[in-house]
């Protein structure tokens, strides 16, 4: 059974009282995040919003599988649609477990029990 190392993206929420959602953006591999980047939205009643944390890739379906350094951004949105400045952080991501080893065998001579 292979194992991948999941990652957690967490943040300190906006102090504004009118925030109703958060949008999370991810850059292209090795690039910078922009408003045109791939994004996911979490409403205020979602556990991710309430816990200020998402699990990657579980909570971000379609998150890039290419091993690379990605930039992640998060933006608060209020009930009038105003968007706060984006908070950004970057880090390496690799959700592809290494290929399993093959060709396993026992050496006839080494393991003969007399």
């Amino acid at each position: 059974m292979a194992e991948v190392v999941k990652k957690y993206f967490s943040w300190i929420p906006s102090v504004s009282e009118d925030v109703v959602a958060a949008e999370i953006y991810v850059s292209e591999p090795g690039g910078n995040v922009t408003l045109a980047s791939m994004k996911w939205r979490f409403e205020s009643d979602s556990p991710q919003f309430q816990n200020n944390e998402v699990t990657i890739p579980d909570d971000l379906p379609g998150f890039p599988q290419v091993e690379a350094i990605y930039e992640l951004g998060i933006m608060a949105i209020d009930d009038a649609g105003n968007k706060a400045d984006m908070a950004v952080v970057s880090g390496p991501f690799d959700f592809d477990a290494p290929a399993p080893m093959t060709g396993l065998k026992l050496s006839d001579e080494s393991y003969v029990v007399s």
Partner: protein
Amino acid sequence: MKKRYIYRRTCLGLSRLICAATFLSILLLFIPTVVSGQSVISSMTGTEYIVSGAEVTIQWDTVSNALAYEARLLMLYQEPVTYFALARIPASEVSVTFKQPRAGHFEAQVRTCKYADCHIEDPAKPEESVSGWSVSTDIDVATVDGVPMAWWIYWRLAPVTGPVISKKEVGDGGSS
């Protein structure tokens, strides 16, 4: 630092041109405390003050026969119409400082009162006891740096802070 943006002016503010019918001498000025950044807003010509700080101060010209002023903020692009921070100012003062009511775009409005309490519901006082509202998006009464120009305020939404990426090994049961 403030940014000035010139955009196409359409309907916004036109309906308010009738304001200041009684006291056209009011000129709105604006002294922002913390202004930076930029934002996009359409359909108006003027200056957008993008404010990150908590307070802004607006000023206006003295009206000779005023006994008081009233000032308020109108949130733009918001339905239903929502006003914030109504303030009553004695005639001896010609400015008021507003704390951030919330994030969003706001137009400042000021009117003159012939009664110190600005009370117009009293049937004994004529409706003319207050002026129309002079609004900051009306180029006929608003100025920026002494130049006739519409202006409005954009209070930024407080950002999320301190994002971090952490990891924890979890068996996923199948990736290879």
